């Protein structure tokens, strides 16, 4: 029972951490609170639907391609021309991109919710050290955990990762040292696309459906998690997302059945209490690019 809960909680925490890193990375590098993040997730989810008859790994690969393409197109068409705009303008532009992609999806390929039958292997349960664990929970943990390790490696061990972290902390100083905006900004969007695609694959597997507005909830989770952990710190954002996911799983396990419907009320009350004590977020402290 405890192992089952731990796998579920850590898996959901890792999923939420992926979502929050996607939000915090663009906020740091570009000063962009990207409300179109949900539609990047939607692009990945749509690929999971479109390639539902293909092997799951092929569908995941296509989800990455779709999400990265949408992320890069949004950068090139909407955010690139506004590169030196103030954060409010960028935020409004991201609203516009979000609504445009969502409306386009609703008018064309996703006028209504489409079911995606779960893969057979995801419906199984396995015995793990005496605990009855769902393969879906194991997959969530393995996939999101692997992605977090890969992102941590990329950020910590590669030249691009160091440049991304520096740009996320102080874009102007990074530029004056020779970190190129034309390298780090598209790279950040590609990273966000990959994270969103992996998140979307897990979400589709868990929800069994794809709809035009399905990106809203994970986008909000990403924003809330990033605010909780600290918008100006990628580590903080990952921690915030992880804690949010783990707390969600904890509340689902501990709350009596008749109070489950109020899970989010408990969750966000706790969040507000944390932000009253640390309004800058749990691990914030670095500078944020303002324009």
């Amino acid at each position, binding site marked *: 029972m405890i192992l089952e809960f731990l796998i579920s909680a850590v898996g959901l925490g890792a999923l939420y951490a992926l979502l929050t890193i996607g939000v915090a990375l663009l906020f740091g590098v570009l000063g962009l609170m990207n409300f179109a993040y949900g539609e990047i997730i939607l692009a990945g989810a749509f690929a999971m639907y479109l390639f539902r008859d293909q092997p799951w790994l092929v569908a995941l690969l296509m989800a990455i391609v779709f999400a990265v393409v949408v992320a890069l197109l949004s950068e090139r068409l909407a955010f690139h021309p506004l590169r030196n705009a103030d954060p409010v303008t960028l935020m409004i532009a991201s609203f516009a991109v979000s609504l445009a992609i969502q409306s386009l999806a609703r008018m064309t390929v996703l006028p209504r919710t489409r079911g995606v039958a779960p893969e057979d292997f995801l419906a199984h349960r396995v015995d793990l050290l005496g605990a009855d664990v769902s393969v879906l929970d194991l997959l969530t943990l393995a996939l999101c955990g692997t992605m977090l390790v890969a992102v941590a490696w990329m950020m910590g061990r590669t030249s691009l990762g160091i440049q991304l972290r*520096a740009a996320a902390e102080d874009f102007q100083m990074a530029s004056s040292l020779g*970190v190129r905006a034309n390298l780090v900004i598209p790279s950040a969007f590609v990273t966000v696309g990959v994270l969103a695609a992996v998140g979307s694959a897990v979400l589709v597997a868990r929800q069994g459906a794809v709809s035009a507005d399905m990106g809203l909830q994970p986008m909000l989770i990403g924003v809330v998690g990033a605010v909780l952990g600290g918008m100006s710190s990628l580590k903080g954002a990952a921690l915030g997302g992880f804690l949010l996911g783990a707390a969600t799983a904890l509340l689902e396990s501990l709350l009596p059945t008749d109070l489950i419907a109020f899970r989010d009320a408990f969750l966000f009350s706790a969040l507000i209490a944390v932000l009253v004590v640390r309004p800058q977020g749990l691990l914030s402290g670095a*500078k944020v690019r303002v324009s």
Partner: protein
Amino acid sequence: MVLSITDAYLQYGASVMAVQGCSLHVGEGELVSLIGQNGAGKSTLVKAVMGQVPLHSGTITVDGHSVSDRGFSTVRKRVSHVPEDRGIFASLTVGENLRLGGITRKDKAGLARDIERELERFPVLRKYWSRGASLLSGGEQQQLAIARALLLDPRLLLLDEPTLGLAPIIVDLIFDVVVQLREEGMTILLVEQNAVRSLEVSDRSYVLQAPGKVLGSGSAAELGELPAVVEYLGFSPAEVGVTR
């Protein structure tokens, strides 16, 4: 001339003209200091060289190339800037901060040699190589900022208030390094409020008065002969033992 600023007007926002008609020049291998009170426009001038404050009118050139030109890059022109707030990346380690200093360099062997040279110059950075930069003291962060700036192999080094808020022993160390760099032939523009120390180490100095007007310029001895400068500084360089 490496740096040439001619009749520069620099404006913050729509209305604040922080520098009005400033002209100054820094020649190859020269150490030139900008001296003046808070708000005189010293840091604004440095930021304008880095392209961080737009030029309203006048010209600023580095090696004859205007900083206002499209395509002008301080990195390509090898202009290194140590800003007043040091610009250290707190979430990166000391080693990662230093690696960023040489991010544009293609000569990896030369970069490795230069990193070693800076670690010899600032031994504390070797000691704390893997430590998070946010854990360094103010003086250690300043040493990191200067070492990182030197790894660009700069043609022009802009030091903005490098001793601000530091303990006297660290101030001595920073000025020793500045003298060392001057003797190595580095071209430096030093912004300082510590007028006496600046005059001691500089080849020439410009005394700035708000809003960015040059009250006088020259060696410490030449400045001592300008009554307006002596009155502004509150001392004559010769009186405080500066004879350079």
